[in-house]
């Protein structure tokens, strides 16, 4: 039978009709839409049993306690830990995505060596071991070591290794713990300053960004939470003094605008009013202090700090009225402040009878070193890395032959960042133990990957700002990636290879020794419990009036406009950069694409003749940054607020090339008396771009 066209058409018609009464079109239509809910390129849920492990964050500067939820062996969430004194049911915006950061694209996955052409090549650990041992052996006494871990016993190991190499150049990255330690020393006291925020009914934070980044911030905020029942009148008053209406000011009952870097003068102004009202303290140099404070009249303080005199008097009055007032001085951005402002703050507490009093200022005991030849904590905090770098820069000190960094990112995080990078370049050999490929790693000859806090055994001993001495362990909850090595054991072994005897065999021994020194029970710590001690150091410290007088003589900042760096934990730290999950929390007018926005108030903008979104250049002798203008009325006159934590030149797509690094603009000066490097008073000129 020949098939003609008509027959064929009929056949097609038959097929068409037939197909409609088969599952083909309908099943395909349905399955196609089911296919859209199961696209193979979209990740799918992987189930498993949930377990929860209590640990502490080594990533977040607040040392927040946390509970990690694992599904099978995968950490998927970081949750607050109700039982941890540094969490109390809260979590920081940085630590909360720590489980996700385990898979950050910026992680270093294997040891890297800088080749002759400047590129990095992956090498084996054997090769890395050999190279490091060779260079360190060659460097001998000319070794410097920098640690970015402020609370861990790794510093005992690192400082012991540095010491045994015949060098005293072990440094911690700058923080507020150093000026505080200097202040305690100047007062003739001992121990570490602790702040009993929980029991205070009036907390005056001068500069200290206590509800966002200062100290054990999640604990601070738990205290804030506890004193203000939802929808009721607060049981404690929080007052913030600083140049920007930052997150702490947003939570505080009162914001007292004062210029950046004038915290000490403001505190002395308060002291002046308190003494006038009859306050006194049982200290040897009270009269010297009273004389000094006497010169800080409200008018003078108003001139120095830009504070409204009435507001100053109100605060002093409220402090006198409060039952358990507490004054905390600090820097809005957690560094760069001098010992004088701490001394002035402590002085106000002493005048208010707040030393070692409930809801006041405490002197917390500090555990001694547990590794042979390690520095004491006081010694460590006495070392000033920025000053060291400045000395090298000025030719007063020789650049070391080798520098070892441990979880530190000085190439990004130091003031006058560009200058500091130049100084680092003078060091012939640099090695870094790091989790992420940061700016410092990009300058190093050898990059050694270390596990993240969630993957290793580590410890936290009484972070600065804590109200009590405490000790806890970070326990490994996630499997360690194949090619990273924990630094503790590695350095102990390395020291052995170099013929140094640190007196310990393993990293765990170090931690056990530290636990003993802190009076903690190891087994309990390993169960995730925190050792807390309520003991304080009994001391009768003086005001340190002499030192204070020298240090308080603030010099005016360069330029017509003040720089106020704004520190927010959600933007990450120098060590972490912007965590992938935190990009969305950066506010719209803080960063747009690659452009930084800086904030100023309307009056300042009018004075400059700029409007929102206008491009400006902020510059001083240290450097310059270009940015766009955002108008925010919560900034003092003649001040620009600049968000910290941007302008990374390393890390990954979530951080690199976004905005500018405010550290470029911060100029290092030296405090008279203590010689401490300070950079909390930066000025700049602003021009339209």
């Amino acid at each position, binding site marked *: 039978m020949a098939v003609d066209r008509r027959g064929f058409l009929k056949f097609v018609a038959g097929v068409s009709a037939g197909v409609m009464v088969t599952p083909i079109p309908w099943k395909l239509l349905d399955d196609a839409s*089911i296919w*859209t*809910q199961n696209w193979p*390129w*979209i*990740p*799918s*849920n*992987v189930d498993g049993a949930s377990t929860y492990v209590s640990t502490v964050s080594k990533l977040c500067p607040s040392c927040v306690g946390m509970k990690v939820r694992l599904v099978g062996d*995968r950490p*998927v*969430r*970081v*949750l*607050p830990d109700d039982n941890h004194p540094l969490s109390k*049911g*809260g*979590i*920081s*915006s940085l630590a*909360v*995505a720590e489980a*996700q950061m385990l*898979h*950050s*694209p910026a992680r270093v996955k294997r040891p890297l060596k800088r080749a002759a052409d400047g590129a990095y090549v992956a090498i084996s650990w054997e090769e890395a071991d050999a190279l490091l041992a060779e260079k360190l052996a060659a460097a001998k006494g000319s070794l410097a070591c920098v640690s970015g871990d402020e609370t861990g016993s790794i510093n005992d190991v690192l400082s012991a290794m540095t010491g045994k190499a015949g060098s005293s150049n072990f440094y911690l990255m700058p923080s507020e713990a150093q000026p505080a330690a200097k202040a305690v020393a100047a007062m003739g006291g001992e121990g570490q300053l602790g702040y009993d925020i929980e029991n205070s009914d009036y907390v005056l934070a001068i500069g200290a960004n206590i*509800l966002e980044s200062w100290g054990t911030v*999640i604990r601070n*905020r*738990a205290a*804030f939470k506890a004193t*203000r029942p*939802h*929808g009721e*009148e607060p049981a404690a008053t929080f007052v913030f003094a600083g140049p920007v*209406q930052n*997150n*702490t000011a*947003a*939570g505080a009952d009162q914001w007292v*605008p004062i210029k950046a870097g004038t915290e000490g003068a403001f505190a002395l102004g308060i002291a002046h009013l308190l003494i006038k009202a009859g306050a006194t303290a049982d200290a040897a140099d009270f009269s010297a202090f009273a004389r000094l404070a006497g010169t800080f009249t409200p008018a003078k303080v108003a001139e120095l700090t830009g504070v409204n005199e009435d507001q100053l008097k109100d605060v002093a009055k409220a402090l006198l009225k409060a039952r358990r007032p507490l004054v905390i001085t600090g820097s809005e951005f957690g560094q760069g402040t001098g010992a004088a402002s701490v001394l002035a703050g402590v002085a106000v507490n002493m005048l208010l009878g707040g030393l070692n009093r409930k809801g006041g200022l405490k002197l917390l005991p500090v555990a001694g070193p547990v590794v042979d030849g390690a520095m004491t904590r006081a010694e460590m905090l006495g070392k000033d890395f920025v000053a060291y770098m400045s000395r090298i820069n000025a030719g007063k000190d020789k650049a070391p032959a080798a520098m070892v960094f441990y979880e530190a990112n000085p190439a990004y995080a130091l003031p006058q960042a560009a200058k500091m990078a130049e100084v680092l370049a003078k060091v012939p050999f640099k090695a870094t133990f790091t989790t992420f490929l940061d700016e410092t790693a990009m300058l190093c000859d050898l990059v050694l990957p270390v596990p993240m806090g969630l993957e290793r055994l580590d410890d936290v001993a009484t972070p600065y700002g804590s109200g009590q001495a405490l000790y806890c362990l970070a326990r490994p909850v996630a499997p360690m990636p194949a090619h990273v090595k924990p630094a503790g054991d590695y350095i102990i072994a390395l020291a052995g290879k170099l013929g140094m005897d640190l007196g310990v065999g393993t990293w765990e021994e170090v931690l056990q020794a530290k636990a003993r020194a802190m009076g903690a029970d190891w087994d309990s710590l390993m169960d995730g419990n925190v050792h807390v001690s309520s003991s304080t150091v009994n001391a009768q410290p003086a005001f340190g009036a002499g030192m204070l007088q020298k240090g308080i003589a603030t010099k005016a900042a360069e330029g017509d406009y003040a720089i106020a760096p704004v520190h*927010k934990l*959600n933007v990450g730290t120098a060590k972490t950069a912007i965590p*992938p999950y*935190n*990009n*969305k*929390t950066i*506010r*719209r007018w803080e*960063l747009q*694409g690659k452009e930084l926005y800086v904030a100023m*108030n*309307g009056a300042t903008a009018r004075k400059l003749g700029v409007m929102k979104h206008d491009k400006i250049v902020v510059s001083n002798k240290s450097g310059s940054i270009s940015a766009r203008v955002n108008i925010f*009325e*919560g900034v*003092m*006159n003649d001040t620009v607020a600049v968000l910290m934590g941007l302008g990374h030149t390393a890390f990954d*797509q*979530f951080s690199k090339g976004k905005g500018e690094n405010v550290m470029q603009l911060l100029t290092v000066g030296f405090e008279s008396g203590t010689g401490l490097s300070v950079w909390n008073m930066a000025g700049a000129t602003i021009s339209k771009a």
Partner: protein
Amino acid sequence: MEIKEFKVKWGMAIDLDKCTGCGACMVACQAENNLAPIADASNKIKVMNWLVVYELSNKKPFPEHDVAYLPRPCQQCGHPPCVSVCPVVATDKNEEGGIVSQIYPRCIGCRYCMAACPYHARYFNWLDPVWPEGMEKALTPDVSVRPRGVVEKCSFCHHRFMKAKDKAIAEGRDPEALADGDYVTSCAEACPNGAIVFGDLNNPDHQVYHLSRSKYASRLLERLHANTQVYYLSRREWVRRQLDNYLDNEKVKG
């Protein structure tokens, strides 16, 4: 206005005087609900965020300026503008507890619900979600990952409600009578300031029941009668005034 009422009504009371805008809730939300990170999150109106923290200003110049932060989850309206408009019943308010559901495999992505919602609580998957290599290992098994082309929104961590019920069943308790705290959202759990309180608005044993009745409590855009299940508290009059549109001569309560 027909308002859906339920025996149990999950709701929030957010104290705007306690929120300092740190963003922990936003990050916790993303990690809990498997939202993908994004390299450039500058375009805030094209970036997926079930919970957004808005910045409120009293609009006065320095030094009279005051600032407040307002976390905005889905308001889980009692009379949701979004539900009735959905042509395919991908979103509904029908379950005990009163959470507005969003079913991703049903959604065709017409975005009518987004046009309807004045809170901008609804987000569209403009592109397929992408995690940096390996980061998908940190996804939770609790919430399905959404492909491009569908709308999503805050679910009050509904999966935690399911888990709380399962736990109650396993322990022989009544899954319909969860105690205060048995079920909380990820944002409320994470907030270090305790600004967000979560619970049953109909149960006097739950804290939110009382907070929602505070003289400082009001809801967003109340006069539109969406009848939301999220209450905001502030002792500051200017903050309360920004929770709804008021003509100059109108007073605000509290």
